[in-house]
């Protein structure tokens, strides 16, 4: 067993920032990550990081844009925390040496991004995430935080009180990829989940193979609610053959979208008469698919993104990486021809419910970054708003877990505040009652003899996880990749940009079938050394739970808000739906409930307005 004050799970932007902050508070911190930190998917972020740095800009404007972008499903305390702190945190990155692009006068460069009233997307070429990730890893090395890399976290050690709000997280159980050792990591103060998004629940995604939502699934099974999971962002410009992202920066710099007839459809077909290509992502993605569905797509699949008119010099100066991506992953030279693009799964707005200090309803358990939902992005995330979330909330979670005093949160977690229960109208039985190999279906481990101290709970969780692994290694059965690929296809088909009741129900049936088939998966590689077959099989289980959560939320929400569009109700219905979707794992099946959105900011209340661009 290993022991530290604070255990950070994951080493992308959020995890690294959390670890550095906790260390600065004087805590003994360790990072446990299934990838070496520099391999994290934060490195793939291209376009930039929003911060109101200039005199003509203000955090209030940034907050207003973010609330509007969220289609009024963001919580004001979280949004205001983000926008107030982002400038300071971005300047901190600059002092850590991050290689931002520069203006003639030597100041950091900013560019326009969709949905922003001021060009506040601060960037480093079209490789902002790479620069951010490496800069923070460098500071981590400097700070001497211990890193257990290529240790895959399997589960949380959480006590098993009846109500999740009474539970405590005592540590995590992880698997050493290189040696096959399963070990407990005791956290004296707290565990911070920073495990990134669940993009692999879909088959056409800009997310990495490692983005399997592990932290969300673990927290969910431990009783922490997942919030607003139905809100999945589909980025309008991913390359058709691989899903590799072409940054919004291209449109920010003036790139234009054309359909097969050479029409600039964002304007010519009236999707966004003011902002055109720079309308919010959900708007542009739907426009593209409408074009394709109405027969104006190219090869019935995609549209064109043209940046040739920007000129070679400007492209190389600000978007060089895009040229490499288009060339290497689609065989297209962006200087001489338009690039084919279509919508691809990109970002999960929802996630583990936290307050603005990063704390969940289980004491000692925190979450930050894409896996968390504070909620900053509500129904739709603005481009350039995820990277500031990593550093602002990563830092807060790190400080808080290390014992620093933060102001009391305004957002309540779990069923502590106002809430309403709801029925799920599912055509099939949901969830996994008494799921195989779990110590207790409903999260939590029970130690032998009922001991409730942290060490015993952690030991019991280690034992349960070992048994699960032995079982997977010993049994015979089908390979998980069949199950995973069917799941991904069904999600992309039915839980995409356009959603309708029948399709969503079909997806739930497919998920049920996939769950049933998963009961007979087996790992065929018998090795203890670097057994990726085993780990991917475990990840597939997580994807099943999350795909179900996404679909249940989508089926229940009968309105059109942000990224979530429903054929049956193509309008935003504030009277009924101005509320967060919450899903709790209860005895192995999801329980649906809702909690109110907080629109009251520090100094003003954000009034829901029609969202037009």
């Amino acid at each position, binding site marked *: 067993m290993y022991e530290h004050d604070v255990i950070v799970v994951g080493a992308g932007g959020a995890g690294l920032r959390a670890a550095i902050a906790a260390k600065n508070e004087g805590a003994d911190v360790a990072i446990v990550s299934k990838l*070496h930190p520099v*391999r994290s998917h934060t490195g793939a972020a291209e376009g930039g990081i929003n911060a109101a740095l200039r005199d003509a800009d203000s955090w209030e404007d940034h907050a207003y844009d973010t609330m509007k972008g969220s289609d009024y499903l963001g919580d004001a305390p979280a949004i205001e925390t983000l926008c107030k702190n982002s400038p300071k945190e971005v300047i901190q990155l600059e002092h850590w040496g991050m290689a*931002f692009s520069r203006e003639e006068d030597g100041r950091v460069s900013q560019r326009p991004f969709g949905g922003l009233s001021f060009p506040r997307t601060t960037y480093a070429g079209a490789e902002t995430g790479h620069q951010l990730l*490496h800069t923070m890893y460098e500071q981590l090395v400097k700070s001497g935080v211990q890193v257990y890399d290529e240790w895959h976290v399997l589960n949380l050690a959480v006590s098993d009180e009846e109500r999740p709000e009474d539970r405590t997280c005592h540590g995590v159980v992880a698997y050493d990829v290189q040696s096959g*050792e399963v070990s407990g990591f005791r956290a004296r103060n707290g565990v911070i989940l920073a495990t990134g998004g669940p993009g692999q629940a879909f088959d056409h995604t800009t997310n990495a193979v490692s983005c399997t939502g592990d932290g969300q699934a673990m927290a969910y099974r431990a009783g922490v609610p997942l919030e607003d999971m139905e809100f999945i962002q589909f980025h309008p410009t991913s390359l058709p053959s691989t899903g590799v*992202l072409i940054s919004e920066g291209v449109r920010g710099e003036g790139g234009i979208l054309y359909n097969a007839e050479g029409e600039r459809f964002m304007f010519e077909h009236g999707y966004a008469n003011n902002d055109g290509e720079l309308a919010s992502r959900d708007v542009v993605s739907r426009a593209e698919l409408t074009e394709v569905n109405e027969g104006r797509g190219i090869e019935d699949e995609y549209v064109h993104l043209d940046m040739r008119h920007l000129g070679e010099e400007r492209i190389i100066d600000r978007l060089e990486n895009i040229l490499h991506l288009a060339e290497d992953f689609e065989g297209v030279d962006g200087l001489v021809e338009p690039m084919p693009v279509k919508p691809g799964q990109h970002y999960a707005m929802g996630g583990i419910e936290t307050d603005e200090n990063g704390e969940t309803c289980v004491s000692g358990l925190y979450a930050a970054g894409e896996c968390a939902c504070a909620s900053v992005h509500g129904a739709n995330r603005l481009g350039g708003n995820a990277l500031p979330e990593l550093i602002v909330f990563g830092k807060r979670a790190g400080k808080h877990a290390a014992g620093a005093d933060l102001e009391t949160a305004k957002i309540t977690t779990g069923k502590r505040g106002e809430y309403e229960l709801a029925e799920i109208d599912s055509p099939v039985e949901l969830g996994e009652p008494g799921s195989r190999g779990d110590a207790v279906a409903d999260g939590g481990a029970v130690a032998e003899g009922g001991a409730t101290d942290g060490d015993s709970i952690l030991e019991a969780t280690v034992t349960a996880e070992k048994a699960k692994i032995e079982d997977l290694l010993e049994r015979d059965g089908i390979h998980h990749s069949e199950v995973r690929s069917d799941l991904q296809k069904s999600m992309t088909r039915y839980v995409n940009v356009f959603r309708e009741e029948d399709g969503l129900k079909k997806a739930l049936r497919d998920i049920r079938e996939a769950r049933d088939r998963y009961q007979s998966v087996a790992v065929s590689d*018998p090795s203890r*050394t*670097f057994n990726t077959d085993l780990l991917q099989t475990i990840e597939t289980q997580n994807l099943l739970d999350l795909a179900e959560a996404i679909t249940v939320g989508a089926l229940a929400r009968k309105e059109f808000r942000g990224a979530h569009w429903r054929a049956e109700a193509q309008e935003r219905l504030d009277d009924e739906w101005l509320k967060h979707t919450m899903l709790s794992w209860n005895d192995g099946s999801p329980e649906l409930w809702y909690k109110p959105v907080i629109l009251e900011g520090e100094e003003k209340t954000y009034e829901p307005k029609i969202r037009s661009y």
Partner: protein
Amino acid sequence: MSTQVPKQKEAESPAEEESAPSVGKQRRDQAKAERRTAAEKQKEAAEKAKEAEDTYHIKVFRYDPEVEGKQEPRFDEFHVPFTKGMTVLDALMYARDHYDPSLTFRHSCRQAICGSDAFFVNGSQKLGCKTQLSELSEPVRIEPLPHQDVVKDLVVDMDHFYEQMHAIEPYFDPDELPDGELEEQRQTRENREKVKMSTRCIWCGACMSSCNIAAGDNQYLGPAAINKAYRFAMDEREGEARKQERLKIIEQEHGVWRCQTQFSCTEVCPKDIPLTEHIQELKREAVKSNLKFW
């Protein structure tokens, strides 16, 4: 170049101490392994038949220190249906998901940014996800990076590479740290341009693996670490005193002076970083500052 399989390691990892596999377990594993090879053979045969169709023939290095039949390194052959734009990584994933789930390699982003999947492909270091199959002659030989210990199949031990990266104090560490509220610093466009290429490194290890000097001198910092030092030494924001310290680090016995400008690192770097040039420039900087302090 040779692929290094570690000398039969004493089987004493903590995992095995804790849960030494029982005899029964060993038997089951073996039975399982046999069933698998039989199934594999069938599949391979099925594949051969398909060869007339558009398939790619790949030969992949296999090794596992603890699985019978894999302790002696061998090559496995797969025929992978070819689709336009298919990369070496796509072919490996296809082979793993359809023929042999135990085929092991690191990968994550699929877009040349995480640096996980540098392999030795048809005799040179390449990123799997960035290398088109159509540009390679068949059969495509895929091996782990040479000069690094093989953990399993295409997975090599990266610890030595990381140690060298850490050895150059790879973090921004300015001469003066301002107190209180931080203010944005200025940096000229020229200076940012100067360090730009050096900041693109994705720690893939291809350069180090291609370097003859690194192969002969285990303590040589290697191209990636020296490039990292360049990234800081040339950044005007860090300050002159720190730069002098950095030059001292790279001037040590196993530093820049070892480089014999063979350009192999520059040739293989998937991010097109002019590594040899950077090393040469640091040599010149070091000479300049030595003259100054004489």
